[in-house]
């Protein structure tokens, strides 16, 4: 029988919210809960909380997100948690990322590189998607 307080292999959780900076805290809160329920320890949980915030920032970077939504998806696998963040319903960037934006992007990349096992960002004409994979140190509870 599945423990109601845990998430198991194949479980998915989605979260959609308006693409506003003041709401990124929602992504961090949900990441904390899901990480704990997916068997990550407290240090890994803190890493994921920070990493998810950076994913949201990467998705928002360089895009006109004033009218869009951020769509997060958390997927639990046997040894890892996969998280993707997609900016939907917003116009793509008309201008290159500013100098400040470049610096912020670089800091986000550095943070993600240190905290998670794999990460990436893809932008095309209609969407921006950032993703990460963090492997669990211990076995799934």
């Amino acid at each position, binding site marked *: 029988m599945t423990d109601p307080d845990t998430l198991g292999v194949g479980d998915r959780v989605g979260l959609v919210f308006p693409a506003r900076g003041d709401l*990124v805290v929602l992504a961090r809160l949900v990441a904390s809960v899901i990480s704990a329920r997916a068997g990550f320890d407290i240090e890994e949980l803190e890493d994921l909380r920070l990493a998810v915030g950076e994913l949201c920032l990467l998705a928002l970077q360089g895009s006109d997100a004033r009218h869009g939504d951020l769509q997060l998806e958390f997927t639990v696998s046997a040894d890892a948690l996969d998280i993707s963040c997609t900016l939907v319903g917003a116009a793509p960037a008309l201008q290159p990322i500013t100098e*400040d934006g470049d610096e912020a992007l670089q800091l986000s990349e550095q943070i993600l590189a240190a905290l998670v096992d794999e990460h990436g960002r893809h932008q095309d004409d209609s969407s921006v998607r950032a993703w990460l994979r963090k492997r669990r140190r211990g076995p799934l509870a």
Partner: protein
Amino acid sequence: MEQEFHIAERLDRGVPVISVGGEIDVATAPQLRESLHLAITPEQSSVVVDLLNVTFLDSTALGVLVGALKRCREFGGELHVVVNDARIVKIFEITGLTKVFPIVDSLTAVGAS
């Protein structure tokens, strides 16, 4: 319960000390940017940023601090960061900023109280 974001400013022996509490992220970092911009002037080129009560910070917050540090140095001053929470120090470490900022773990270490 999460601590509410707040900023307090004071002068300690003529040096501005900006104390921040709560979470500094993309939503709150602009307030810190504004405080630092006002505090750092050609006449007052050094500042202490007290992060002892900060519970979370992200790349946006780091970007604001880097920008403020550049401004301080442009005017011949320095920006000192006070932080003692291991989780916050880790973020400075993984971004290599411990080599850029003078970081200390107490206000007394920078001569403030």
